[in-house]
């Protein structure tokens, strides 16, 4: 057994898995607040990565400045998404919101295509181009940063949901938004905060992904679906589950690339998604929500 290859497969899986995890956490945040699946989540990653790379190239600003600006742009898009979905007062059921997010995702992608003039854009890593040697394998330093980012995001969100008033409100909204509204908490306000958080997470994922590849208007869609699979794998709405789901999915894909047929690496995510939906819809770490009727 070639241990170098094994380590390489694991590193590759963690590198891509960290991005999946960040996307998966975003799905969970929106699900908790609205009960809907937000298919714009993948496009947040695209907008975050693409706008950071475009700003970097156009303005020649430091990478960090470009990233901060890109997060701001994406958060604004998150607020607009919420307005587009709930601002007209017609959509209230999770199913209708979910379907509307698909429409918004298409609009965002189309706009990005026109704004970027169909070009690809690159963003250098804040940590430089040197690679990191680990036990006979190698990875970029960006991988470590992405992993730290994913872990920090999950820890921060867990704390936020458990220990802050807004976090508690968001959790309560997930549990029973109607009762919460009788206490004078606006459904719109909680939803808007959820979209702000989800968009920021997406933008960070995009900024973390861009140095590993290049970004184009087309970078987000498939990533969104894989992030969704990761979220389902870990249990939708559970940040720690999302982290585990993302990393596991990344490693499963890397194993396919390294040992099996790469042609099927992409299929892994969707086989996992199907299996989870059929066998254990609450995910590995999720618990079924008790519903009183």
């Amino acid at each position, binding site marked *: 057994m070639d241990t170098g290859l094994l380590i390489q497969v694991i590193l590759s899986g963690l590198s891509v898995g960290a991005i999946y995890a960040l996307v998966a956490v975003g799905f969970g945040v929106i699900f908790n607040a609205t009960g809907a699946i937000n298919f714009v989540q993948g496009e947040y990653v695209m907008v975050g990565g693409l706008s950071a790379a475009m700003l970097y190239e156009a303005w020649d600003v430091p990478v960090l400045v470009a990233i901060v600006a890109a997060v701001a742009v994406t958060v604004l898009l998150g607020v607009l998404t919420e307005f587009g979905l709930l601002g007209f007062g017609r959509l209230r059921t999770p199913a209708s919101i979910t379907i509307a997010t698909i429409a918004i995702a298409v609009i965002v992608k189309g706009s990005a295509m026109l704004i970027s003039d169909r070009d690809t854009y690159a963003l250098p890593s804040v940590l430089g*181009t040197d690679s990191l040697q680990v036990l006979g394998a*190698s990875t970029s330093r960006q991988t470590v940063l992405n992993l730290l980012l994913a872990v920090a995001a999950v820890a921060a969100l867990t704390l936020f949901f458990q220990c802050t008033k807004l976090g508690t409100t968001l959790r309560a909204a997930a549990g029973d938004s109607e009762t919460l509204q009788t206490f004078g908490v606006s459904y719109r306000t909680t939803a808007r905060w959820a979209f702000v958080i989800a968009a920021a997470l997406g933008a960070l994922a995009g900024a973390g992904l861009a140095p590993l590849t290049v970004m184009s208007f087309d970078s987000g869609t498939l990533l969104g679906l894989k992030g969704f699979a990761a979220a389902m794998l870990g249990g939708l709405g559970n940040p720690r589950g999302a982290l585990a789901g993302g990393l596991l999915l990344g490693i499963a894909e890397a194993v396919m690339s390294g040992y099996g047929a790469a042609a099927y690496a992409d299929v892994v995510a969707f086989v996992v998604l199907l299996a989870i939906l059929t066998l254990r819809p609450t995910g590995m770490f999720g618990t079924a929500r008790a519903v009183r009727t």
Partner: protein
Amino acid sequence: MRKKISTLLTCSVLLALSACGLGSSGSDTDSDDTIKIGTLFSVSGAGANLGDKMRKGAELAVKQVNADGGIDGKKIDWVFYDPAGDTSTAVQQTNRMLDSDGVELVVGGGGSSGIALAMDPITSGRGVAFIATEGARQIVEPAAEAHPLTFKTTFNDTVMVERLIAFWKANGITRVAFMPDTSSFGQSAQEELERLAPEAGIKVFTAAFDPAANDLTPQVKRLAGNDPQAYLAWTITPAGVTFLKNIRSVIGERDVMVMHGFGFVDDRYMEQAGAASTGTILVSPKLPVWDQIDASDPQQPVMEDFATAYAEEYGGEQPNVYAGQAYDAMMVAVAALRATGGDTDGEKIADAIEGLGTHVGVTGAFKFTADDHSGLTVDDVAVIQWDGSRFLPVE
């Protein structure tokens, strides 16, 4: 953006003026004064970037021909559709072009081999000639038996693979790690390489990757175990940038040849890979090094005129090989139409194309025959190297 709008305005004003001026022929564009050529390129959807370059190449050809007085006095009336990379949309649009729009000749197959392959039975079924700009050799092979009316202005991957093998033999390379993507572009090249390389005494180790992959280190690491002298990727997607970065990361400073196929010849991709792309060797049409090849090459002035006119038309933008292929396809159609005296009958056009002799284009010196509807040979292939800022020819 402003330039685009002003171009649009200019065009529409010119159109309005010409319609008024002609007067007698009325506003009906399907008259004897024009020849309707239909084109499909995916300027939106996944391959939008390449589709946009192809559209510009074809558009430039149409503008040049019309500015020169057209074909025996007939202007080209250009009908354009965007199938957005979707084959079923492309099929509908092809039908509409031929049934409702009165298109007499089709140039450009949607920017993807899958679309071109689906369009071919439709155009052939109506006896219309079709000049594709897509890569797969199946679009035109076997020419005489199955595709008498269909041509293409791109290289067959067989030709590229033959050139590669000659290059490896000349450089003493016998062990090659091959990384095609899982699209038909990559898989078709894999078939040809695994068929032709063993005969030449070259061992090929293959690990495919998904075109949407963001990390290829597992494949590179696995191939590195075979101690190859060269790594060759075959893709048109941004994953090729990841390939370059990952190679440098995994094999470090070890002295190996890093190579890309002709689908990845693009300055922007090379620049985006940063330091990792320096020294990358590619098989390519000669266009990227048009200003550095022997001036006695008959292709040189054609490429120079094209590059100059393209940059002038599109705000200083440099054309890439995709723009060149589309320009060639339109110009081959025009040359054939001149030969038939404007007759658009499919069989007459096909005979005319096969009778062109040598058509010196941007992509190569095309020699179409009844059995070869691609027309390009290894002599048209250049081996080029990215030196960190531009492509240079490799001896």
